[in-house]
């Protein structure tokens, strides 16, 4: 039963398990699937496409910023491009990237389930996402909203560009996010295999669980907010219009009540991936399993009470500023707990420096650097200086692009053999990882300096003395682009021609490796009975023996 794929091919015997990839090969068998693994793969394809799209927009912006004056395209096009970049990257890539793609694929495997709790809802969430994405992209191409992804009133209620379909697209994508969140929470509660108590749930599952809580509780408020902006544009309801007694700052409260926790929707799954990979590639039990698990919930909880730090200069009271500043710093504490535990896991471990491990290193650097600047930004007096400058841009790109992309790429490389049963070229993997980490630093460290020197974000033109740092940033972005192209090429090659791998090429003790790679459609012939902690490297039992028969 546990023969490797290669052995079976040599013997000429039919595979013991029909993998989910070969169980039905027609297009309809994919489009109409209830299999969480296929839904995960479809999400993966979609988010990679939108990552590419958002990346192209980012490069276009960076190309314009090579010169201080007008260059390449006009100011309105520039405004549309950064809106396109923000909306695509946040709503179409980062929010669904890790939870919907990798979460869908590995979460049921990790808890010994045959599928998510509501398979049809899961497939629906993909189509709802796709519908919202198509509408949003169509709106952005044809109308080209120029408000930035934040849709701040009163500009968003008065701009002549076509905002309504874009808002509708974001509204629809929100439903997809809620569906995924509900599905994962219920799955974790009701479908854990025998032996997986709450303190044996793999750390990635904890990350996704915390994420799902935020998705469920925060997303409805975003839905309401964009609905109010749309009604104000179309029917003149005036909820945010001072001429009718409305308050534009209320919009900011509503918007950030979702959009700040949304940052944790993006980063918590990445933290989960890192928790898995650190243990696997250090061959050591996670140091402080409970601390890592509960700090995820802590971030999810505190994340709901920090939104006011986006309003430090919006006329919020001094008292509120102080409270929100302090609450925001709690996130730093929970994050630090995680960072120390990851480093503690590596300490005296048997580290194998594979591609995912390279991304762990990148992740730790970006998270700590981005997190520290975040704590600095939560300090009210400093924020007044840095607000709406490139310092803020660099800060959140360190977290959202740096840390989240590191997590995404680590997950992609770590679970690639699990998903497709093949391995990629390790050497090229390390080359691309170095290029990407270098490129990120080269792109965003100059932006910290620019922001500290007072360059405001989202401006089309800038004074000439900022040019050198802008050129450096653009050069870094180009490097980053090359890194992604290399990854794309070797992964596509690996998909088609990569050597087939055995069930557990990393010798990981993660529960998801208890099934063949790629897994059969129904994951487990018999539901496993787990008798060990996740990532228990203290014992030398080969993975799979704790599958009860």
């Amino acid at each position, binding site marked *: 039963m546990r023969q490797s794929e290669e052995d079976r091919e040599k013997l000429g015997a039919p595979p013991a398990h029909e993998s989910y990839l070969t169980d039905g090969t027609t297009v309809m068998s994919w489009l109409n699937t209830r299999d969480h693994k296929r839904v995960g793969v479809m999400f993966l394809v979609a988010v990679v496409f939108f990552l590419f799209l958002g990346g192209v927009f980012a490069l276009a912006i960076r190309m314009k910023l090579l010169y201080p004056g007008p260059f390449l395209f006009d100011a309105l096009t520039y405004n549309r491009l950064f809106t396109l970049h923000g909306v695509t990257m946040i709503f179409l890539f980062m929010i669904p990237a890790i939870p919907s793609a990798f979460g869908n694929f590995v979460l049921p495997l990790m808890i010994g389930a045959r*599928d998510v709790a509501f*398979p049809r809802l899961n497939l629906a969430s993909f189509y709802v996402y796709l519908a919202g994405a198509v509408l949003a992209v169509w709106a952005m191409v044809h109308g080209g909203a120029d408000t930035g992804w934040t849709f701040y009133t009163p500009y968003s209620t008065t701009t002549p560009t076509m905002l309504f379909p874009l808002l509708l697209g974001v509204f629809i994508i929100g439903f997809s996010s809620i569906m995924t969140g509900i599905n994962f929470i219920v799955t974790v509660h009701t479908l854990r295999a025998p032996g997986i108590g709450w303190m044996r749930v793999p750390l990635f599952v904890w990350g996704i669980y915390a994420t799902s809580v935020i998705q469920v509780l925060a997303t409805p408020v975003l839905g*309401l907010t964009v609905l109010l902006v749309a009604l*104000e544009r179309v029917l*003149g309801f*005036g909820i945010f219009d001072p001429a009718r*007694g409305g308050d534009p700052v209320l919009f900011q409260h509503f918007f950030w009540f979702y959009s700040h926790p949304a940052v944790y929707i993006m980063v918590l799954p990445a933290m989960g991936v890192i928790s898995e990979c650190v243990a696997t590639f250090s061959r050591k039990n996670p140091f402080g399993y409970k601390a890592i698990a509960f700090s995820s919930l802590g971030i999810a909880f505190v994340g709901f009470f920090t939104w006011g730090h986006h309003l430090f200069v919006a006329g919020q009271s001094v008292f509120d500023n102080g409270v929100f500043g302090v609450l925001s710093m709690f996130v730093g504490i929970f994050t630090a707990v995680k960072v120390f535990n990851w480093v503690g896991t590596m300490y005296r471990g048997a580290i194998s420096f594979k591609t995912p491990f390279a991304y762990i290193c990148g992740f730790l650097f970006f998270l700590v650097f981005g997190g520290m600047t975040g704590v600095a930004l939560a300090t009210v007096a400093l924020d007044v200086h840095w607000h709406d400058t490139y310092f803020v841009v660099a800060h959140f790109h360190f977290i959202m692009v740096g840390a989240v992309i590191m997590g995404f790429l680590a997950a992609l490389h770590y679970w690639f053999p699990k998903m497709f049963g093949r391995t990629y070229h390790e050497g090229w993997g390390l080359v691309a990882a170095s290029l990407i980490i270098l490129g990120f630093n080269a792109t965003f460290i100059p932006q910290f300096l620019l922001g500290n020197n007072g360059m405001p974000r989202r401006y089309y033109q800038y004074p000439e003395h900022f040019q050198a740092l802008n050129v450096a940033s653009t050069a870094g972005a180009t490097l980053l682009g090359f890194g992604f192209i290399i990854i794309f090429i070797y992964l596509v090659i690996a998909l088609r021609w990569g050597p087939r791998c055995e069930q557990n090429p990393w010798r990981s003790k993660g529960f998801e490796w208890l099934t063949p790679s790629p897994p059969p459609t129904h994951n487990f012939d018999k539901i496993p009975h787990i008798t060990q902690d996740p990532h228990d490297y203290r014992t030398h039992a080969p993975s799979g023996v704790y599958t009860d028969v």
Partner: protein
Amino acid sequence: MSEAAALPPGEHLVHGTDPHLAHHFSSLERQVDASRLGMWLFLSTEVLLFAGLFTGYAVYRYSFPVAFAASARTSEIWAGTLNTIVLITSSLTVALAIHFVRAGRQRAAVACLAITLFFALAFLGIKAIEYTAHFHEHQLPGRYYRFEGVRLPGAEMYWALYFLMTGLHGLHVVIGMTVLAVIAWRTAHGYYSAHYYVGIELAGLYWHLVDLIWIFLYPLLYLI
């Protein structure tokens, strides 16, 4: 369910022959628990959705206390009161439907669901009469506000919130009616029984939430 139908025959033997049991659940109880938890989570998203509007109401009530009180006094209080009675009664009938299906009396359950649907329709009818009156009086949101009775700053905000809150609630009533109709049809065709009735239970939960939101809307928009 369709997932179960798509399985190879061996899987059915493992799980027995209950047509309601999906392949990935070990028991029907577990599956019903999952459905209930899913519904409660969904209800929490609904609460958060309306919480935004209640926050907006609180903010603007605080800014314009006089205009809000004066506008609320011009709303159709008889209609609001009648609708409150109608909705609470409909919550009773939907609860009775669950009771009857548990007792194995599907026909009585279908009748209760039908009565619930009738009450929901009555609610929408009364709401439509109210809306018509508001339109005639130009008690409308934002830039369309032309009501002569109350000429205070902030009155148009009251009507913006009034139409937003009752409109969104009305939309939920319509969705609830659709769900109840499907559930009633399924019950009438023997899909639910004393053994398996989670669908009626979930529809009932949803309907109670719709009712509960109205119980908060009623005092805010009509009484104070």
